[in-house]
């Protein structure tokens, strides 16, 4: 049984008791506990079930590498699945439940899988569940899905807050162990701007647990002094609870800070994602101990030796009364010694090495611990908890020599450096024979834009196993990083530690060496995903020989711990099966993040209303308060229609059209793109951007223009006004403003960089109102000011002046076919001007109108709309806009493309008007269907609807469409197919449905 000890626990504060529940059971722990240590202190070893066989699972580790101890945590809006208990700080009121079982943790029906495990080897699902065909979707897949997955899905809307921070540093050091501390100190002493981050709550990492002595002081003291020194330096930022999550190109590194996970609801953001640009990054991320592969190594109570030690030393928690230590190296003895020193029993250290001498083993022997060399664990007894182990010869087949009673097993399989962050951006690894691990290859570091390395590594993360070596490499990395960041390296010497001599470890990949298939089926590699030694061997046998194939076929390393415990052991088995060397087999790719980070932290503050920036015109509030039914247009929200009391949207639209055509309508046209093009070469530039001739436009005049992309397709349109000799104002569509601005800049910056032209997007600098309808002039005259009569301001001209005391720029242009003035005022005056128009317009029947009314009025007039008549495949010629394409210009964007054979093909579909025979509205997007099928068995088509509306003015459906040879087929009746297969008949007509001669607009 595991329990709290009375005499140890350097991290827990016994005076601060924390209450929590697990599966409804009330438990207590202390401040400083992790959820895992608190559970263990309450003898809760069994915490979950494995993925595939639903086997009982206990805690095996004490950090981010934990594969088993994941729980559902919190409730309601703070519920979260898969919380790793080993990295969860205990807090008062914490509630959690175990996962992946039904009906209960103790009794799980899913464990049936375990009893038929023999029939469920790696990849079994690729070989079966194929008949009958429909059964996969309806029977097998639902069953598999139900039994897979881990925690439950959250249901409620998250109530917590998340944020992003940005930082720019000379040197970022990841990992606050002694190597990281020393690296930060050395870099800071050299004058660099340094950030040091540590994922746990405490500085110092493993050294204090392992009893290191640095510069003659206990590790804890050295750590406190170093942290204090760093805190006192202005050029240093220290963060605990912050994990280096991912390293990206050009020194970009993300830091995941768990600000308030342990204080839920205190108002602070829960997580903070730091996005840091670093000139240099030092990864001092430590190492992770490897399990050993022996039969039954997944039974709760079998743990990493380092974790057993952590729980005793850091949290004052014993895993068991009697712990058997099994090891292939000297470090395992530290655990045995720590346990005995804490007053616990270690019946035996099982050491796979045939010769065991040296400082640590001898100290263990001196303490009276029985050390068995050349031995292995042949089997583990127990179901939901270890009760004993069978000892055998390591170089045998597993025949039991002896049984030892115990309630815990501590495995020490050697250490693997944490190379993830080093590898994320392309850092390469080398295989270290003596330590049997991969470590960073300093000669093949990730490189930045200048071709120089930007990631360094230090401490045990670099494979420097000894304390002195770790301090020295931390010191060297800190200085080198500072130097690479442009500072002069400090000349202070690195601290030194007392040396503990350790003998070589022996790579032991399975225990015992000649175990047969029955034992190999019980040796777990990946605890969460239930991948065993036999599975990797099966993959190799079946030809899944590449590591990536093995990984994917067996799911080794694909669980939430991403193989932190299993990968190297799995690789070794694979290499052995293939008769290859481990480095030849290689590793799978390390991908960010190091351990999973919350989606919410990635999204940051941008959610709900501020999910994307909301652009507002000066009239936005008025619009919102006057019945607007909004539609999103880019980042704007525009009124689709203004609903009056009790009106439906359709009724409102109808009313708006009628009112504007008969009396007076106001449209907030501020979203319309406005781009200034200015400079000595502006005319030349305008002629390239537009199909029309713009350089000859007279000052004071307006011209409707078309823009095409280099493939000749129509991309935007709008009215251009010539402001003065070298200035043009281009109106673009609302959705197109930013795109067109970017497009202009792209050409100017990449192709025509030697032209003297500047472009500026002034869309938001002006508010613009379209004053539309027969009474338009009357309302302006009532407000008084500049002359807006036909004589002084004719159609397609513009002028500046005052109206009603406002500084305005008035364009006589019309998108509705009505008498229309588009009036721009400085944005700050927009709302006042709008109000003035509404007030003055009252006697003339003024009403605001929305985008749908705008669309209908333009369709009644046969004007095209970008995005309706165009879709990225339409050239102006398709729309009968040849008149807007200059024949005189040598070149413009799209000209050459429009000369290609398919573009000049007479068979292209062309724009016409369409009228249903029965007056109904043609369905949006309907295709004109022709007799017969094509070679692929699809119905032949001869055109399609591009815009279709009910016209309130004409009281019937009107539409535009592009039809094969359309303009030559006026009066012909063709058929449009509905989605249900029935047809609607429509006549091909002229696309201008209303006021064909344009008499209304030119008054």
């Amino acid at each position: 049984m595991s329990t709290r000890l009375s005499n140890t626990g350097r991290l827990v504060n016994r005076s601060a008791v924390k209450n929590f529940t697990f599966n409804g059971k009330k438990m207590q722990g202390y401040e400083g506990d992790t959820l895992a240590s608190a559970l263990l202190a309450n003898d809760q070893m069994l915490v979950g079930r494995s993925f595939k066989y639903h086997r009982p699972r206990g805690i095996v580790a004490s950090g981010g590498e934990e594969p088993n101890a994941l729980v559902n945590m919190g409730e309601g809006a703070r519920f979260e699945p898969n919380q790793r208990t080993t990295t969860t700080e205990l807090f008062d009121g914490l509630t959690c439940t175990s996962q992946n079982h039904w009906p209960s943790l103790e009794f799980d029906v899913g464990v049936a899988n375990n009893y038929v495990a023999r029939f469920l080897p790696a990849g079994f699902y690729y070989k079966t569940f194929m008949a009958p065909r429909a059964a996969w979707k309806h029977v097998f897949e639902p069953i598999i899905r139900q039994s897979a997955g881990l925690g439950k899905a959250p249901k409620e809307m998250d109530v917590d807050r998340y944020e992003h921070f940005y930082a720019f540093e000379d040197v970022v050091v990841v990992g606050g162990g002694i190597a990281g501390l020393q690296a930060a100190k050395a870099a800071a002493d050299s004058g660099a701007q340094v950030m040091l981050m540590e994922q746990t709550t405490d500085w110092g990492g493993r050294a204090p647990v392992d009893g290191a002595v640095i510069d003659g002081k206990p590790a804890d003291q050295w750590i406190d002094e170093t942290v204090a020194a760093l805190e006192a330096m202005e050029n240093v930022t220290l963060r605990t609870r912050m994990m280096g999550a991912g390293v990206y190109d050009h020194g970009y590194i993300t830091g995941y800070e768990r600000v308030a996970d342990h204080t839920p609801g205190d108002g602070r953001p829960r997580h903070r994602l730091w996005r840091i640009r670093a000139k240099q990054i030092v990864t001092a991320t430590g190492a992770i101990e490897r399990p050993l592969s022996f039969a039954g190594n997944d039974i709760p109570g079998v743990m990493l030796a380092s974790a057993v030690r952590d729980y005793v030393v850091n949290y004052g928690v014993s895993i068991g009364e009697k712990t058997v230590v099994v090891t292939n190296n000297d470090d395992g003895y530290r655990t045995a010694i720590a346990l005995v020193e804490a007053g616990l029993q270690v019946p035996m250290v099982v050491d796979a090495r045939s010769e065991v001498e040296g400082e640590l083993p001898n100290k263990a022997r001196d303490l009276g611990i029985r050390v068995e060399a050349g031995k292995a664990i042949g089997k583990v007894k127990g179901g939901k908890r270890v009760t004993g182990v069978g000892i055998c010869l390591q170089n045998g087949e597993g025949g039991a020599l002896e049984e030892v009673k115990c309630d815990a097993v501590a495995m020490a399989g050697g250490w693997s450096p944490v190379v993830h962050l080093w590898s994320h951006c392309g850092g390469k690894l080398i295989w270290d024979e003596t330590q049997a691990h991969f470590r960073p290859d300093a000669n093949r570091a990730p490189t930045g834009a200048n071709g120089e390395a930007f990631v360094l590594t230090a401490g045990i993360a670099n494979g420097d196993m000894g304390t002195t070596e770790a301090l020295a490499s931390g010191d060297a990395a800190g200085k080198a990083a500072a130097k690479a960041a442009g500072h002069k390296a400090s000349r202070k010497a690195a601290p030194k530690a007392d040396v503990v001599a350790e003998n070589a470890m022996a790579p032991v990949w399975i225990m015992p060496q000649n175990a047969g298939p029955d034992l190999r089926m019980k040796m777990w590699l990946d605890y969460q995903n239930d991948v065993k030694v036999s599975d990797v061997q099966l993959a190799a046998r079946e030809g899944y020989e590449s590591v990536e194939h093995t990984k994917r076929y067996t799911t080794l390393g694909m669980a939430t711990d991403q193989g932190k415990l299993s990968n190297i052991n799995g690789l070794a088995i694979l290499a052995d099966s293939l008769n290859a060397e481990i480095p030849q087999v290689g590793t799978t790719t390390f991908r960010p993040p190091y351990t999973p980070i919350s989606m919410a932290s990635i999204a940051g503050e941008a959610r709900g209303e501020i999910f994307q920036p909301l652009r507002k015109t000066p009239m936005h509030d008025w619009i919102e308060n006057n019945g607007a039914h909004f539609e999103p247009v880019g980042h704007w929200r525009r009124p689709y229609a203004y609903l009056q009391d009790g009106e439906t949207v359709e009724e409102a639209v109808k009313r708006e059209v009628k009112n504007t055509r008969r009396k007076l309508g106001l449209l907030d046209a501020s979203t319309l793109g406005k781009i200034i093009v200015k400079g000595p070469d502006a005319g030349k530039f305008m002629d390239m951007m537009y199909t029309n001739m713009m350089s000859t436009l007279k000052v004071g005049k307006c011209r409707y223009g078309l823009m095409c992309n280099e493939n000749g397709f129509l991309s935007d349109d709008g009215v251009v006004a010539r402001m003065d000799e070298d200035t043009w104002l281009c109106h673009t569509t609302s959705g197109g403003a930013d795109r067109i601005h970017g497009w202009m800049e792209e050409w100017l910056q990449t192709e025509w960089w030697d032209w003297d032209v500047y472009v500026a997007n002034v869309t938001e600098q002006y508010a613009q109102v379209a004053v539309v309808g027969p009474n338009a002039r009357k309302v302006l005259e009532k407000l008084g000011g500049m002359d807006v009569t036909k004589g002084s301001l004719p159609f397609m001209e513009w002028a500046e002046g005052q109206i009603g005391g406002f500084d305005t720029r008035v364009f006589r242009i019309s998108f509705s076919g009505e008498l229309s003035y588009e009036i721009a005022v400085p944005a700050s005056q927009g709302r006042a001007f709008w109000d003035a128009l509404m007030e003055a317009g009252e006697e003339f029947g003024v009403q605001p109108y929305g985008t749908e009314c705008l669309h209908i009025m333009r369709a009644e007039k046969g004007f095209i709309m970008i995005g309706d008549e165009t879709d990225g495949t339409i050239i102006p010629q398709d729309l009968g806009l040849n008149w807007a394409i200059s024949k005189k210009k040598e070149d413009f964007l799209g000209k050459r493309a429009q000369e290609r054979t398919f573009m000049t093909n007479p068979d292209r579909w062309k724009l016409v008007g369409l009228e249903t025979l029965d007056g109904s509205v043609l369905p949006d997007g309907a295709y004109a269907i022709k007799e017969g099928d094509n070679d692929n068995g699809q119905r032949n088509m001869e055109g399609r609807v591009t815009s279709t509306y009910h016209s309130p003015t004409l009281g019937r459906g009107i539409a535009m469409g592009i039809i094969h040879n359309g303009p030559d087929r006026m009066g012909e009746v063709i058929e449009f197919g509905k989605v249900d297969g029935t047809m609607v008949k429509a006549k091909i007509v002229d696309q201008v449905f209303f006021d064909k001669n344009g008499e209304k607009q030119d008054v």
Partner: protein
Amino acid sequence: MRRYSAFAIAREAARYHQGWERAWAAPEPKKKYDVIIVGAGGHGLATAFYLGKNFGITNVAIIEKGWLGGGNTGRNTTIIRSNYLQDPSAAIYEKARSLYETMSQDLNYNVMFSPRGVMMLAQTESEIRGYQRTAHANAYQGVSTEFISPQRVKELCPIMNIDGPRYPVLGALWQPRGGTARHDAVAWGYARACSDMGMDIIQKCEVTGVRSEGGKVVGVDTSKGAIDCNKLAVVVAGHSSDLAQMAGFRLPMESVALQALVSEPIKPCMDVVVMANTVHGYMSQSDKGEMVIGGGTDAFNNYTQRGSFHHIEETVRALVETFPMVSRLKMLRQWGGIVDVTGDRSPIITKTPVQNMFINAGWGTGGFKAIPGSGWAMAELVAKGEPGPLSAEFGMNRFIEGRFIDESVAAGVAH
């Protein structure tokens, strides 16, 4: 080939699974083949499979520089749908989708095709119109789709927030027989079947040169030496431009990184595939329980199989907005693949300036779903030397003629 079945598993279980054979052989290259296919991704392997199955051509080598299925075939988000807008696209994707229906049985390898339904959300007025147009086109292209209401969207996918606040769901284009499949299994299943027909799959062998005589292809140089062939089919996705360069011509194509990510696994909560193009993100739940999430491409060309972090951010933000429950899940892993994007974002299945050399590429961000249809069409082109109806429109001359097959018309992304 020993057939896979529940009985075979039972038989093997009795002897600790020691009797399973290799799924595919690992031969050394021969001197010469009738057809060499470069690239053992899904498209290359499917091409080989249909060369054998439809045309009886089995003296074939499939040469792969890494491990089979290790390109984009093994790193995509596995969405399968055929509700494309343009006729040629709808034809080839629907052919592919229908072949997915029976692929497990055809290959005797469970590829876990799961026709759970794919919906593409309409969140702006123009998206509504775009999808209504697609629905109309599909009705006459033999593709079964439907434009559904927001209420139906919610019924099919209860974890979705259809009420905005920024982009309320206005409807969706729904293809009930779209879905997902297990990507690795598709590659492995084809590889096993090809190997069984006597074809040679040669892994860890990089093609470094294309040899031709008198304008006609005669073989390739590889890291395992020169290999001769009568016909050469290049099916290497993001590296197509390199192979074209080896043969002395250029392709209208760029390579960019596309990223994806998964959450930690959770119990089943989403039974359909959802694509949200306005906010730009899409999601489904794998059989393992992970939420599989895909996003956008980088705006610059590269070959690193890594992408920029801000794209991950943009995608996750879109997902949190659309599915609030995502907020309290964690990102387990992110990765990238190099996708081959053409000028009109549609594929190229084509003859080339070099006689008897053919290229199939440009599937870009959405070619997993096309694998069987593409292989079918490519096999026909290689076997007959002329395109059949499925690939007729996908020749690369279309860029010279301006005859684009543009799908971005209907949707911003084409996964």
